[in-house]
Protein backbone atom coordinates (compact mmCIF):
# COMPACT_ATOMS: atom_id res chain seq x y z
CA UNK A 1 0.00 0.00 0.00
CA UNK A 2 2.85 2.33 0.78
CA UNK A 3 4.74 1.93 -2.49
CA UNK A 4 1.91 3.29 -4.68
CA UNK A 5 1.16 7.00 -4.73
CA UNK A 6 -1.67 7.57 -2.23
CA UNK A 7 -4.82 9.36 -3.35
CA UNK A 8 -4.75 11.72 -0.40
CA UNK A 9 -1.70 12.49 1.62
CA UNK A 10 -1.54 14.72 4.69
CA UNK A 11 1.89 15.73 5.95
CA UNK A 12 2.50 17.61 9.18
CA UNK A 13 -1.08 18.86 8.86
CA UNK A 14 -2.28 21.24 11.59
CA UNK A 15 -5.34 23.41 12.02
CA UNK A 16 -5.71 26.16 14.58
CA UNK A 17 -8.44 28.65 15.36
CA UNK A 18 -8.09 32.10 16.88
CA UNK A 19 -9.92 32.37 20.19
CA UNK A 20 -10.04 34.96 22.93
CA UNK A 21 -7.62 32.78 24.90
CA UNK A 22 -5.11 32.54 22.08
CA UNK A 23 -4.75 30.04 19.26
CA UNK A 24 -6.64 26.77 19.69
CA UNK A 25 -4.87 23.78 18.14
CA UNK A 26 -7.62 21.49 16.92
CA UNK A 27 -5.41 19.29 14.75
CA UNK A 28 -1.69 18.87 15.40
CA UNK A 29 0.96 17.55 13.02
CA UNK A 30 -1.06 14.78 11.46
CA UNK A 31 0.47 12.50 8.81
CA UNK A 32 -2.10 10.32 7.09
CA UNK A 33 -2.32 8.64 3.67
CA UNK A 34 -5.45 7.34 2.04
CA UNK A 35 -4.76 4.86 -0.76
CA UNK A 36 -6.84 4.39 -3.89
CA UNK A 37 -9.93 2.37 -2.98
CA UNK A 38 -9.04 2.24 0.68
CA UNK A 39 -11.43 2.76 3.56
CA UNK A 40 -9.89 4.59 6.50
CA UNK A 41 -11.61 5.07 9.83
CA UNK A 42 -10.79 8.06 12.02
CA UNK A 43 -11.89 7.42 15.58
CA UNK A 44 -11.84 9.63 18.64
CA UNK A 45 -14.07 11.24 21.22
CA UNK A 46 -15.87 14.55 20.77
CA UNK A 47 -13.37 17.36 20.52
CA UNK A 48 -10.50 15.15 19.44
CA UNK A 49 -10.24 17.06 16.16
CA UNK A 50 -11.51 14.40 13.78
CA UNK A 51 -14.18 16.55 12.13
CA UNK A 52 -11.82 19.51 11.78
CA UNK A 53 -9.27 17.12 10.27
CA UNK A 54 -11.65 15.88 7.58
CA UNK A 55 -13.09 19.29 6.75
CA UNK A 56 -9.62 20.82 6.83
CA UNK A 57 -8.23 18.16 4.50
CA UNK A 58 -10.98 18.91 2.03
CA UNK A 59 -10.51 22.67 2.48
CA UNK A 60 -14.04 23.29 3.68
CA UNK A 61 -13.11 25.25 6.79
CA UNK A 62 -13.69 29.01 6.65
CA UNK A 63 -10.40 30.53 5.52
CA UNK A 64 -10.48 33.52 7.82
CA UNK A 65 -11.16 31.60 11.03
CA UNK A 66 -9.09 28.46 10.49
CA UNK A 67 -5.34 28.52 9.99
CA UNK A 68 -4.00 25.48 8.23
CA UNK A 69 -0.38 24.43 7.95
CA UNK A 70 1.41 21.46 6.51
CA UNK A 71 0.57 19.96 3.15
CA UNK A 72 -2.44 18.21 1.68
CA UNK A 73 -1.69 16.37 -1.54
CA UNK A 74 -4.68 15.09 -3.43
CA UNK A 75 -3.86 13.18 -6.59
CA UNK A 76 -0.56 15.07 -7.13
CA UNK A 77 -2.22 18.46 -6.50
CA UNK A 78 -1.16 20.45 -3.48
CA UNK A 79 -4.44 21.60 -1.94
CA UNK A 80 -2.86 23.42 1.00
CA UNK A 81 -1.82 26.34 -1.17
CA UNK A 82 -4.57 26.13 -3.80
CA UNK A 83 -7.00 29.05 -4.02
CA UNK A 84 -10.66 28.33 -3.31
CA UNK A 85 -11.58 28.42 -6.99
CA UNK A 86 -9.18 25.55 -7.67
CA UNK A 87 -10.37 23.57 -4.65
CA UNK A 88 -13.92 23.92 -5.88
CA UNK A 89 -13.05 21.94 -9.01
CA UNK A 90 -12.23 18.92 -6.86
CA UNK A 91 -15.24 19.25 -4.60
CA UNK A 92 -18.18 17.07 -5.56
CA UNK A 93 -16.42 15.38 -8.46
CA UNK A 94 -13.13 14.45 -6.76
CA UNK A 95 -13.86 14.66 -3.07
CA UNK A 96 -17.28 14.71 -1.49
CA UNK A 97 -18.56 14.77 2.05
CA UNK A 98 -21.44 13.32 4.02
CA UNK A 99 -22.36 15.34 7.08
CA UNK A 100 -23.35 14.22 10.53
CA UNK A 101 -26.86 15.60 10.80
CA UNK A 102 -28.94 15.20 7.66
CA UNK A 103 -31.58 17.54 9.07
CA UNK A 104 -29.28 20.54 9.12
CA UNK A 105 -27.11 19.57 6.15
CA UNK A 106 -29.97 19.54 3.67
CA UNK A 107 -31.37 22.92 2.72
CA UNK A 108 -34.72 23.12 4.54
CA UNK A 109 -36.50 25.20 1.91
CA UNK A 110 -35.52 23.39 -1.29
CA UNK A 111 -36.93 20.18 -2.70
CA UNK A 112 -34.85 17.00 -2.57
CA UNK A 113 -34.88 16.84 -6.36
CA UNK A 114 -33.30 20.24 -6.88
CA UNK A 115 -30.65 19.63 -4.23
CA UNK A 116 -29.81 16.27 -5.71
CA UNK A 117 -29.61 17.29 -9.36
CA UNK A 118 -27.91 20.64 -8.68
CA UNK A 119 -24.41 19.15 -8.65
CA UNK A 120 -25.11 17.16 -11.81
CA UNK A 121 -26.35 20.21 -13.67
CA UNK A 122 -23.73 22.68 -12.47
CA UNK A 123 -20.68 20.43 -12.31
CA UNK A 124 -21.36 17.88 -15.03
CA UNK A 125 -23.40 20.23 -17.30
CA UNK A 126 -26.21 17.71 -17.58
CA UNK A 127 -29.50 18.92 -18.99
CA UNK A 128 -32.61 18.91 -16.84
CA UNK A 129 -33.95 15.63 -18.14
CA UNK A 130 -30.70 13.67 -17.85
CA UNK A 131 -30.03 15.06 -14.40
CA UNK A 132 -33.48 13.96 -13.26
CA UNK A 133 -33.02 10.47 -14.69
CA UNK A 134 -29.65 10.17 -12.97
CA UNK A 135 -31.14 11.57 -9.75
CA UNK A 136 -33.87 8.94 -9.76
CA UNK A 137 -31.26 6.23 -10.37
CA UNK A 138 -29.25 7.49 -7.40
CA UNK A 139 -32.27 7.55 -5.09
CA UNK A 140 -33.16 4.07 -6.25
CA UNK A 141 -29.59 2.94 -5.61
CA UNK A 142 -29.59 4.20 -2.02
CA UNK A 143 -32.83 2.20 -1.58
CA UNK A 144 -35.30 5.03 -1.30
CA UNK A 145 -38.80 3.76 -1.96
CA UNK A 146 -40.79 5.75 -4.54
CA UNK A 147 -37.97 8.04 -5.76
CA UNK A 148 -40.33 10.02 -8.01
CA UNK A 149 -42.34 11.21 -4.99
CA UNK A 150 -39.24 11.87 -2.86
CA UNK A 151 -37.81 14.17 -5.54
CA UNK A 152 -40.77 16.49 -4.94
CA UNK A 153 -40.50 16.44 -1.14
CA UNK A 154 -38.76 18.73 1.32
CA UNK A 155 -36.22 17.39 3.84
CA UNK A 156 -38.57 17.87 6.80
CA UNK A 157 -41.04 15.48 5.19
CA UNK A 158 -38.59 12.56 5.32
CA UNK A 159 -37.43 10.35 8.19
CA UNK A 160 -33.89 10.59 9.53
CA UNK A 161 -32.73 7.43 7.77
CA UNK A 162 -34.25 8.59 4.47
CA UNK A 163 -32.59 11.98 4.80
CA UNK A 164 -29.21 10.36 5.38
CA UNK A 165 -29.71 8.18 2.29
CA UNK A 166 -30.62 11.29 0.30
CA UNK A 167 -27.44 12.96 1.53
CA UNK A 168 -25.40 9.94 0.47
CA UNK A 169 -27.05 10.13 -2.96
CA UNK A 170 -26.20 13.85 -3.20
CA UNK A 171 -22.58 13.28 -2.15
CA UNK A 172 -22.15 10.46 -4.66
CA UNK A 173 -24.01 12.20 -7.49
CA UNK A 174 -20.89 13.34 -9.33
CA UNK A 175 -19.03 10.05 -8.71
CA UNK A 176 -16.34 11.31 -6.36
CA UNK A 177 -13.13 9.30 -5.98
CA UNK A 178 -12.84 10.04 -2.28
CA UNK A 179 -15.73 10.29 0.16
CA UNK A 180 -15.46 11.80 3.63
CA UNK A 181 -18.22 10.52 5.88
CA UNK A 182 -18.33 12.67 9.00
CA UNK A 183 -20.21 10.75 11.69
CA UNK A 184 -22.53 9.35 9.03
CA UNK A 185 -24.65 7.36 11.45
CA UNK A 186 -24.52 9.33 14.69
CA UNK A 187 -27.88 11.05 14.21
CA UNK A 188 -29.63 7.80 13.29
CA UNK A 189 -31.39 4.99 15.16
CA UNK A 190 -29.24 1.96 15.87
CA UNK A 191 -31.16 -0.26 13.45
CA UNK A 192 -30.77 2.30 10.66
CA UNK A 193 -27.07 2.82 11.50
CA UNK A 194 -26.18 -0.70 10.40
CA UNK A 195 -28.13 -0.36 7.16
CA UNK A 196 -26.48 2.95 6.29
CA UNK A 197 -22.97 1.62 6.99
CA UNK A 198 -23.74 -1.45 4.88
CA UNK A 199 -24.96 0.77 2.06
CA UNK A 200 -21.83 2.94 2.22
CA UNK A 201 -19.58 -0.14 2.03
CA UNK A 202 -21.50 -1.52 -0.93
CA UNK A 203 -21.32 1.77 -2.80
CA UNK A 204 -17.61 2.09 -2.10
CA UNK A 205 -16.89 -1.30 -3.64
CA UNK A 206 -19.25 -0.64 -6.54
CA UNK A 207 -17.75 2.72 -7.42
CA UNK A 208 -14.19 1.81 -6.44
CA UNK A 209 -13.83 4.93 -4.37
CA UNK A 210 -11.80 5.66 -1.27
CA UNK A 211 -13.57 6.52 1.93
CA UNK A 212 -12.68 8.23 5.18
CA UNK A 213 -15.17 7.46 7.94
CA UNK A 214 -15.02 9.77 10.92
CA UNK A 215 -16.74 8.48 14.04
CA UNK A 216 -16.57 8.29 17.82
CA UNK A 217 -17.76 4.68 17.71
CA UNK A 218 -15.13 1.99 17.10
CA UNK A 219 -17.98 -0.50 16.63
CA UNK A 220 -19.29 1.42 13.61
CA UNK A 221 -16.03 1.28 11.68
CA UNK A 222 -14.93 -2.22 12.73
CA UNK A 223 -16.44 -4.07 9.80
CA UNK A 224 -16.21 -1.34 7.22
CA UNK A 225 -12.62 -0.11 7.19
CA UNK A 226 -9.21 -1.33 6.06
CA UNK A 227 -7.31 0.84 8.50
CA UNK A 228 -8.16 2.86 11.57
CA UNK A 229 -6.50 6.00 12.90
CA UNK A 230 -7.24 6.82 16.54
CA UNK A 231 -7.16 10.53 17.33
CA UNK A 232 -6.74 12.17 20.70
CA UNK A 233 -6.43 15.91 21.41
CA UNK A 234 -5.78 16.69 17.76
CA UNK A 235 -3.08 14.08 17.28
CA UNK A 236 -3.06 10.64 15.71
CA UNK A 237 -2.14 8.41 18.66
CA UNK A 238 -2.39 5.03 16.97
CA UNK A 239 -2.88 3.91 13.40
CA UNK A 240 -3.04 0.32 12.20
CA UNK A 241 -4.84 -2.04 9.84
CA UNK A 242 -8.28 -2.67 11.33
CA UNK A 243 -7.71 -6.33 12.23
CA UNK A 244 -4.36 -5.63 13.79
CA UNK A 245 -5.72 -2.74 15.81
CA UNK A 246 -8.47 -4.83 17.31
CA UNK A 247 -6.19 -7.80 17.92
CA UNK A 248 -3.14 -6.00 19.19
CA UNK A 249 -3.84 -2.45 20.31
CA UNK A 250 -0.89 -0.68 21.89
CA UNK A 251 -2.04 2.75 22.98
CA UNK A 252 -3.92 2.90 26.31
CA UNK A 253 -6.40 5.39 24.82
CA UNK A 254 -7.41 2.90 22.11
CA UNK A 255 -7.92 0.32 24.82
CA UNK A 256 -10.03 2.72 26.86
CA UNK A 257 -12.18 3.52 23.82
CA UNK A 258 -12.65 -0.18 23.17
CA UNK A 259 -13.64 -0.90 26.76
CA UNK A 260 -16.33 1.77 26.65
CA UNK A 261 -18.25 -0.06 23.92
CA UNK A 262 -21.14 -2.03 25.48
CA UNK A 263 -20.96 -5.74 24.64
CA UNK A 264 -23.62 -8.39 24.52
CA UNK A 265 -21.70 -10.69 26.88
CA UNK A 266 -21.31 -8.15 29.70
CA UNK A 267 -23.67 -9.06 32.55
CA UNK A 268 -26.62 -6.73 32.74
CA UNK A 269 -26.59 -4.16 35.51
CA UNK A 270 -22.82 -3.80 35.32
CA UNK A 271 -21.56 -0.27 34.83
CA UNK A 272 -19.88 0.51 31.54
CA UNK A 273 -16.26 1.65 32.00
CA UNK A 274 -15.78 5.34 31.26
CA UNK A 275 -12.62 7.29 30.48
CA UNK A 276 -12.38 9.59 33.48
CA UNK A 277 -11.21 13.19 33.19
CA UNK A 278 -11.43 15.19 30.02
CA UNK A 279 -9.47 16.34 27.01
CA UNK A 280 -6.57 18.72 27.73
CA UNK A 281 -7.10 22.42 27.05
CA UNK A 282 -6.35 22.83 23.33
CA UNK A 283 -5.17 26.40 23.81
CA UNK A 284 -2.35 25.31 26.15
CA UNK A 285 0.79 23.65 24.81
CA UNK A 286 1.32 20.10 26.07
CA UNK A 287 4.63 19.14 27.63
CA UNK A 288 4.17 15.42 28.09
CA UNK A 289 1.89 12.85 26.50
CA UNK A 290 -1.51 14.43 25.81
CA UNK A 291 -3.30 11.44 27.35
CA UNK A 292 -1.15 11.48 30.50
CA UNK A 293 -3.77 13.08 32.72
CA UNK A 294 -6.29 10.30 32.04
CA UNK A 295 -4.08 7.29 31.42
CA UNK A 296 -4.31 4.45 33.97
CA UNK A 297 -0.68 3.46 33.34
CA UNK A 298 0.81 6.95 33.53
CA UNK A 299 4.41 7.40 34.76
CA UNK A 300 6.64 10.41 35.37
CA UNK A 301 8.20 9.98 31.95
CA UNK A 302 4.78 10.35 30.29
CA UNK A 303 4.23 13.67 32.06
CA UNK A 304 7.70 14.96 31.26
CA UNK A 305 8.02 14.29 27.53
CA UNK A 306 5.69 13.51 24.67
CA UNK A 307 6.17 10.17 22.92
CA UNK A 308 6.69 10.35 19.12
CA UNK A 309 4.56 8.46 16.64
CA UNK A 310 6.63 5.42 15.85
CA UNK A 311 5.96 2.71 13.28
CA UNK A 312 6.68 -0.45 15.22
CA UNK A 313 5.40 -3.13 12.89
CA UNK A 314 4.66 -2.41 9.20
CA UNK A 315 1.58 -0.21 9.02
CA UNK A 316 1.15 -0.04 12.79
CA UNK A 317 2.24 3.17 14.48
CA UNK A 318 1.44 4.54 17.90
CA UNK A 319 2.42 7.24 20.38
CA UNK A 320 3.25 5.68 23.74
CA UNK A 321 6.27 5.19 26.00
CA UNK A 322 4.78 2.12 27.66
CA UNK A 323 2.49 0.37 25.15
CA UNK A 324 0.06 -2.25 26.35
CA UNK A 325 1.73 -5.10 24.45
CA UNK A 326 5.04 -4.01 25.91
CA UNK A 327 6.87 -4.38 22.60
CA UNK A 328 8.90 -1.19 23.01
Amino acid at each position, binding site marked *: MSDVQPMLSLRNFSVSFDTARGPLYAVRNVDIDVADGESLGIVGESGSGKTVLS*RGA*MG*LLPKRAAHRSGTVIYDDHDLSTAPRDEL*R*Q*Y*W*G*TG*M*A*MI*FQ*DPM*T*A*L*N*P*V*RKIGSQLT*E*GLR*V*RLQMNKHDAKTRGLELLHRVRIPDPEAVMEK*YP*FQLSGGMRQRV*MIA*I*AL*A*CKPRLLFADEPTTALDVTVQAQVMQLLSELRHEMGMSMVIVTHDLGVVAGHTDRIAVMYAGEVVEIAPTKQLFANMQMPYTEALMKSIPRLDTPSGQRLPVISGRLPDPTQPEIGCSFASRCPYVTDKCRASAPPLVEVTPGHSYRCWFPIGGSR
Partner: protein
Amino acid sequence: MTRALPILRRLGALLAVIVLSTFFLSCLLRLLPTDLVDMILSMGTPQEKAALRHTLYLDRDVFTSYIMWFSHFIRGDMGIIYGTGGGETVWSHVTRSLPISLLIMLYTQVFALVIAVPLGIFTAYRAGKKSDRAISNTLFTASSVPNFALAFLLIIVVGVKLKWLPTLEYVGFKENPFQHFKHLAIPCISLGVGLAASYTRLLRTDVIAALKDDYVTMAASKGLSDSRILLTHVFRPASVTLLTAAALNMGALIGGTLVIETIFAIPGFGFEIAYALGTKEFVALQSFIAITAIGYVIFNVTADLLIGVVDPRTRGSR
Protein backbone atom coordinates in the same frame (compact mmCIF):
# COMPACT_ATOMS: atom_id res chain seq x y z
CA MET B 1 -58.09 20.36 0.27
CA THR B 2 -55.26 20.09 2.75
CA ARG B 3 -53.69 23.15 1.16
CA ALA B 4 -56.89 25.18 1.10
CA LEU B 5 -57.81 24.57 4.72
CA PRO B 6 -55.17 26.75 6.40
CA ILE B 7 -55.95 29.53 3.94
CA LEU B 8 -59.66 29.34 4.80
CA ARG B 9 -58.82 29.40 8.49
CA ARG B 10 -56.65 32.44 7.84
CA LEU B 11 -59.48 34.20 6.04
CA GLY B 12 -61.82 33.52 8.95
CA ALA B 13 -59.33 35.04 11.37
CA LEU B 14 -58.90 37.99 9.02
CA LEU B 15 -62.64 38.67 9.05
CA ALA B 16 -62.72 38.53 12.84
CA VAL B 17 -59.88 41.05 13.09
CA ILE B 18 -61.59 43.41 10.66
CA VAL B 19 -64.94 43.20 12.47
CA LEU B 20 -63.37 43.74 15.89
CA SER B 21 -61.22 46.69 14.84
CA THR B 22 -64.02 48.47 12.98
CA PHE B 23 -66.41 47.86 15.89
CA PHE B 24 -64.10 49.56 18.35
CA LEU B 25 -63.69 52.35 15.85
CA SER B 26 -67.44 52.93 15.73
CA CYS B 27 -67.55 52.96 19.54
CA LEU B 28 -64.92 55.71 19.47
CA LEU B 29 -67.27 57.97 17.50
CA ARG B 30 -69.68 57.88 20.45
CA LEU B 31 -66.90 58.69 22.89
CA LEU B 32 -66.07 62.00 21.24
CA PRO B 33 -66.12 64.80 23.81
CA THR B 34 -68.68 66.75 21.80
CA ASP B 35 -71.75 65.38 20.10
CA LEU B 36 -71.01 64.52 16.47
CA VAL B 37 -74.37 65.86 15.27
CA ASP B 38 -73.91 69.18 17.05
CA MET B 39 -70.50 69.47 15.47
CA ILE B 40 -71.72 68.92 11.92
CA LEU B 41 -75.00 70.82 12.22
CA SER B 42 -74.04 73.43 14.77
CA MET B 43 -76.82 75.78 13.64
CA GLY B 44 -79.40 73.22 12.56
CA THR B 45 -82.94 72.90 13.87
CA PRO B 46 -83.81 70.06 16.26
CA GLN B 47 -85.66 68.31 13.40
CA GLU B 48 -82.60 68.51 11.12
CA LYS B 49 -80.40 67.26 13.95
CA ALA B 50 -82.73 64.32 14.63
CA ALA B 51 -82.72 63.44 10.93
CA LEU B 52 -78.91 63.46 10.80
CA ARG B 53 -78.77 61.46 14.02
CA HIS B 54 -80.95 58.90 12.28
CA THR B 55 -78.79 58.90 9.12
CA LEU B 56 -75.66 58.26 11.19
CA TYR B 57 -77.47 55.50 13.17
CA LEU B 58 -76.65 57.37 16.39
CA ASP B 59 -80.21 56.94 17.64
CA ARG B 60 -79.72 53.18 17.91
CA ASP B 61 -77.76 51.11 20.43
CA VAL B 62 -74.05 50.50 19.82
CA PHE B 63 -74.39 47.08 18.20
CA THR B 64 -77.26 47.90 15.88
CA SER B 65 -75.64 51.10 14.72
CA TYR B 66 -72.39 49.25 14.10
CA ILE B 67 -74.09 46.56 12.04
CA MET B 68 -75.98 49.23 10.06
CA TRP B 69 -72.78 51.17 9.46
CA PHE B 70 -70.75 48.07 8.52
CA SER B 71 -73.34 46.72 6.12
CA HIS B 72 -73.30 50.03 4.27
CA PHE B 73 -69.55 50.38 4.55
CA ILE B 74 -68.74 47.12 2.81
CA ARG B 75 -71.04 48.13 -0.05
CA GLY B 76 -69.06 51.35 -0.51
CA ASP B 77 -71.74 53.56 1.05
CA MET B 78 -69.59 55.46 3.52
CA GLY B 79 -71.59 58.65 3.84
CA ILE B 80 -70.68 62.09 2.67
CA ILE B 81 -68.02 64.70 3.27
CA TYR B 82 -69.99 67.25 5.29
CA GLY B 83 -67.49 70.08 4.82
CA THR B 84 -68.31 70.21 1.10
CA GLY B 85 -71.95 70.80 1.87
CA GLY B 86 -72.79 67.16 1.16
CA GLY B 87 -71.78 67.36 -2.49
CA GLU B 88 -69.08 64.67 -2.37
CA THR B 89 -69.28 61.14 -1.04
CA VAL B 90 -66.58 59.59 1.11
CA TRP B 91 -66.37 56.73 -1.38
CA SER B 92 -65.47 59.09 -4.23
CA HIS B 93 -62.59 60.42 -2.14
CA VAL B 94 -61.43 56.89 -1.37
CA THR B 95 -61.44 55.72 -4.98
CA ARG B 96 -59.61 58.85 -6.05
CA SER B 97 -56.91 58.91 -3.37
CA LEU B 98 -56.30 55.28 -2.35
CA PRO B 99 -54.72 54.10 -5.65
CA ILE B 100 -52.25 57.00 -5.51
CA SER B 101 -51.09 56.06 -2.03
CA LEU B 102 -50.94 52.36 -2.86
CA LEU B 103 -48.70 53.21 -5.82
CA ILE B 104 -46.44 55.35 -3.62
CA MET B 105 -46.21 52.52 -1.08
CA LEU B 106 -45.50 49.99 -3.80
CA TYR B 107 -42.78 52.09 -5.44
CA THR B 108 -41.25 52.81 -2.04
CA GLN B 109 -41.13 49.10 -1.17
CA VAL B 110 -39.68 48.19 -4.56
CA PHE B 111 -37.08 50.94 -4.26
CA ALA B 112 -36.15 49.82 -0.72
CA LEU B 113 -35.94 46.12 -1.64
CA VAL B 114 -33.98 46.70 -4.84
CA ILE B 115 -31.35 48.46 -2.73
CA ALA B 116 -31.56 46.23 0.34
CA VAL B 117 -31.42 42.74 -1.20
CA PRO B 118 -28.08 43.03 -3.01
CA LEU B 119 -26.53 45.16 -0.24
CA GLY B 120 -27.79 42.82 2.51
CA ILE B 121 -26.34 39.76 0.81
CA PHE B 122 -23.11 41.54 -0.10
CA THR B 123 -22.46 42.98 3.36
CA ALA B 124 -23.18 39.60 4.97
CA TYR B 125 -20.80 37.88 2.58
CA ARG B 126 -18.11 40.43 3.37
CA ALA B 127 -19.07 40.72 7.05
CA GLY B 128 -16.46 42.54 9.11
CA LYS B 129 -14.46 43.68 6.09
CA LYS B 130 -13.97 47.30 5.06
CA SER B 131 -16.65 47.25 2.36
CA ASP B 132 -19.20 45.86 4.84
CA ARG B 133 -18.33 48.45 7.46
CA ALA B 134 -18.49 51.31 4.96
CA ILE B 135 -21.90 50.26 3.61
CA SER B 136 -23.37 49.35 6.98
CA ASN B 137 -22.30 52.62 8.61
CA THR B 138 -23.54 54.71 5.68
CA LEU B 139 -26.93 53.01 5.84
CA PHE B 140 -27.09 53.42 9.60
CA THR B 141 -26.50 57.15 9.17
CA ALA B 142 -29.07 57.36 6.39
CA SER B 143 -31.69 55.51 8.43
CA SER B 144 -31.38 57.94 11.32
CA VAL B 145 -32.52 60.87 9.12
CA PRO B 146 -36.32 61.26 9.44
CA ASN B 147 -38.07 60.89 6.09
CA PHE B 148 -39.56 64.38 6.06
CA ALA B 149 -36.13 65.89 6.72
CA LEU B 150 -34.73 63.85 3.85
CA ALA B 151 -37.67 65.02 1.73
CA PHE B 152 -36.82 68.68 2.35
CA LEU B 153 -33.16 68.02 1.68
CA LEU B 154 -33.97 66.35 -1.64
CA ILE B 155 -36.41 69.14 -2.55
CA ILE B 156 -33.74 71.78 -1.96
CA VAL B 157 -30.84 69.97 -3.64
CA VAL B 158 -32.36 67.87 -6.42
CA GLY B 159 -35.50 69.92 -6.98
CA VAL B 160 -34.62 73.57 -6.45
CA LYS B 161 -30.83 73.79 -6.94
CA LEU B 162 -30.26 71.18 -9.63
CA LYS B 163 -33.80 71.33 -11.08
CA TRP B 164 -33.65 67.62 -12.00
CA LEU B 165 -36.97 66.60 -10.56
CA PRO B 166 -40.31 68.29 -9.86
CA THR B 167 -41.18 68.80 -6.22
CA LEU B 168 -44.93 69.31 -6.23
CA GLU B 169 -48.13 67.70 -7.43
CA TYR B 170 -49.07 64.36 -8.85
CA VAL B 171 -49.36 63.13 -12.43
CA GLY B 172 -51.32 59.95 -13.14
CA PHE B 173 -49.59 57.05 -14.84
CA LYS B 174 -52.14 57.02 -17.66
CA GLU B 175 -51.74 60.73 -18.32
CA ASN B 176 -47.96 60.60 -18.72
CA PRO B 177 -45.95 57.64 -17.43
CA PHE B 178 -42.64 59.48 -17.60
CA GLN B 179 -43.90 62.51 -15.68
CA HIS B 180 -45.66 60.12 -13.27
CA PHE B 181 -42.40 58.52 -12.16
CA LYS B 182 -40.58 61.84 -12.23
CA HIS B 183 -43.11 63.36 -9.85
CA LEU B 184 -43.05 60.40 -7.47
CA ALA B 185 -39.25 59.97 -7.41
CA ILE B 186 -38.42 62.31 -4.53
CA PRO B 187 -41.40 61.27 -2.37
CA CYS B 188 -40.64 57.56 -2.77
CA ILE B 189 -36.90 57.98 -2.23
CA SER B 190 -37.52 60.03 0.93
CA LEU B 191 -39.78 57.29 2.24
CA GLY B 192 -37.63 54.41 1.01
CA VAL B 193 -34.11 55.24 2.21
CA GLY B 194 -34.84 54.50 5.87
CA LEU B 195 -36.65 51.31 4.91
CA ALA B 196 -33.80 50.20 2.67
CA ALA B 197 -31.38 50.68 5.55
CA SER B 198 -33.42 48.63 8.01
CA TYR B 199 -34.11 45.90 5.42
CA THR B 200 -30.41 45.68 4.63
CA ARG B 201 -29.57 45.20 8.29
CA LEU B 202 -32.26 42.55 8.74
CA LEU B 203 -31.15 40.62 5.69
CA ARG B 204 -27.47 40.96 6.59
CA THR B 205 -28.07 39.43 10.03
CA ASP B 206 -30.11 36.54 8.61
CA VAL B 207 -27.68 35.81 5.80
CA ILE B 208 -24.76 35.78 8.26
CA ALA B 209 -26.69 33.30 10.40
CA ALA B 210 -27.61 31.15 7.40
CA LEU B 211 -24.01 31.12 6.16
CA LYS B 212 -23.03 29.30 9.35
CA ASP B 213 -25.55 26.52 8.69
CA ASP B 214 -24.43 23.03 7.69
CA TYR B 215 -26.34 23.07 4.44
CA VAL B 216 -24.15 25.91 3.21
CA THR B 217 -21.01 23.83 3.84
CA MET B 218 -22.82 20.94 2.17
CA ALA B 219 -23.61 23.13 -0.86
CA ALA B 220 -19.97 24.25 -0.96
CA SER B 221 -18.82 20.63 -0.84
CA LYS B 222 -20.73 20.02 -4.08
CA GLY B 223 -18.35 22.48 -5.71
CA LEU B 224 -20.87 25.28 -6.28
CA SER B 225 -19.66 28.85 -6.66
CA ASP B 226 -20.11 31.31 -3.80
CA SER B 227 -22.54 33.45 -5.77
CA ARG B 228 -24.68 30.43 -6.60
CA ILE B 229 -24.66 29.32 -2.96
CA LEU B 230 -25.67 32.80 -1.81
CA LEU B 231 -28.51 33.12 -4.29
CA THR B 232 -29.95 29.61 -4.38
CA HIS B 233 -29.17 28.26 -0.92
CA VAL B 234 -28.86 31.20 1.45
CA PHE B 235 -31.12 34.00 0.24
CA ARG B 236 -34.39 32.09 0.33
CA PRO B 237 -34.24 30.76 3.90
CA ALA B 238 -32.76 34.07 5.05
CA SER B 239 -35.50 36.22 3.52
CA VAL B 240 -38.32 35.21 5.88
CA THR B 241 -37.70 38.01 8.39
CA LEU B 242 -37.32 40.49 5.56
CA LEU B 243 -40.70 39.52 4.11
CA THR B 244 -42.41 39.86 7.49
CA ALA B 245 -40.77 43.24 8.01
CA ALA B 246 -41.79 44.41 4.55
CA ALA B 247 -45.42 43.54 5.27
CA LEU B 248 -45.43 45.16 8.70
CA ASN B 249 -43.82 48.25 7.24
CA MET B 250 -46.78 48.67 4.91
CA GLY B 251 -48.62 49.80 8.02
CA ALA B 252 -45.85 52.19 8.97
CA LEU B 253 -45.80 53.47 5.40
CA ILE B 254 -49.43 54.60 5.72
CA GLY B 255 -48.22 57.02 8.38
CA GLY B 256 -45.21 57.91 6.24
CA THR B 257 -47.34 58.73 3.20
CA LEU B 258 -49.47 61.02 5.40
CA VAL B 259 -46.46 63.25 6.00
CA ILE B 260 -44.92 62.93 2.56
CA GLU B 261 -48.17 63.51 0.66
CA THR B 262 -48.76 66.64 2.68
CA ILE B 263 -45.27 67.93 1.87
CA PHE B 264 -45.54 67.24 -1.86
CA ALA B 265 -49.25 68.12 -2.17
CA ILE B 266 -50.05 64.68 -3.53
CA PRO B 267 -53.82 64.01 -3.25
CA GLY B 268 -53.34 60.52 -1.81
CA PHE B 269 -54.99 58.63 1.00
CA GLY B 270 -52.62 59.99 3.65
CA PHE B 271 -53.45 63.49 2.46
CA GLU B 272 -57.17 62.69 2.82
CA ILE B 273 -56.68 61.38 6.35
CA ALA B 274 -54.71 64.48 7.32
CA TYR B 275 -57.41 66.66 5.78
CA ALA B 276 -60.24 64.79 7.52
CA LEU B 277 -58.41 65.11 10.84
CA GLY B 278 -57.86 68.83 10.34
CA THR B 279 -61.45 69.56 9.36
CA LYS B 280 -63.01 67.17 11.90
CA GLU B 281 -64.65 65.00 9.23
CA PHE B 282 -65.16 62.18 11.68
CA VAL B 283 -67.66 60.27 9.53
CA ALA B 284 -65.20 60.09 6.67
CA LEU B 285 -62.35 59.43 9.09
CA GLN B 286 -64.11 56.37 10.49
CA SER B 287 -64.20 54.81 7.01
CA PHE B 288 -60.64 55.90 6.21
CA ILE B 289 -59.28 54.31 9.35
CA ALA B 290 -61.37 51.17 8.80
CA ILE B 291 -59.87 50.88 5.31
CA THR B 292 -56.38 51.35 6.77
CA ALA B 293 -57.02 48.57 9.29
CA ILE B 294 -58.30 46.24 6.58
CA GLY B 295 -55.28 47.05 4.44
CA TYR B 296 -52.97 46.30 7.34
CA VAL B 297 -54.61 42.90 7.90
CA ILE B 298 -54.48 42.06 4.19
CA PHE B 299 -50.77 42.91 3.97
CA ASN B 300 -50.06 40.66 6.92
CA VAL B 301 -51.96 37.73 5.49
CA THR B 302 -50.21 38.22 2.16
CA ALA B 303 -46.87 38.15 3.96
CA ASP B 304 -47.82 34.93 5.76
CA LEU B 305 -48.81 33.30 2.51
CA LEU B 306 -45.58 34.45 0.86
CA ILE B 307 -43.56 33.09 3.76
CA GLY B 308 -45.34 29.77 3.24
CA VAL B 309 -44.16 29.81 -0.36
CA VAL B 310 -40.59 30.70 0.62
CA ASP B 311 -40.33 28.35 3.59
CA PRO B 312 -42.37 25.18 3.15
CA ARG B 313 -41.87 24.18 6.79
CA THR B 314 -44.24 26.91 7.93
CA ARG B 315 -47.13 25.88 5.67
CA GLY B 316 -50.24 25.00 7.59
CA SER B 317 -48.73 25.71 10.97
CA ARG B 318 -49.28 29.46 10.92
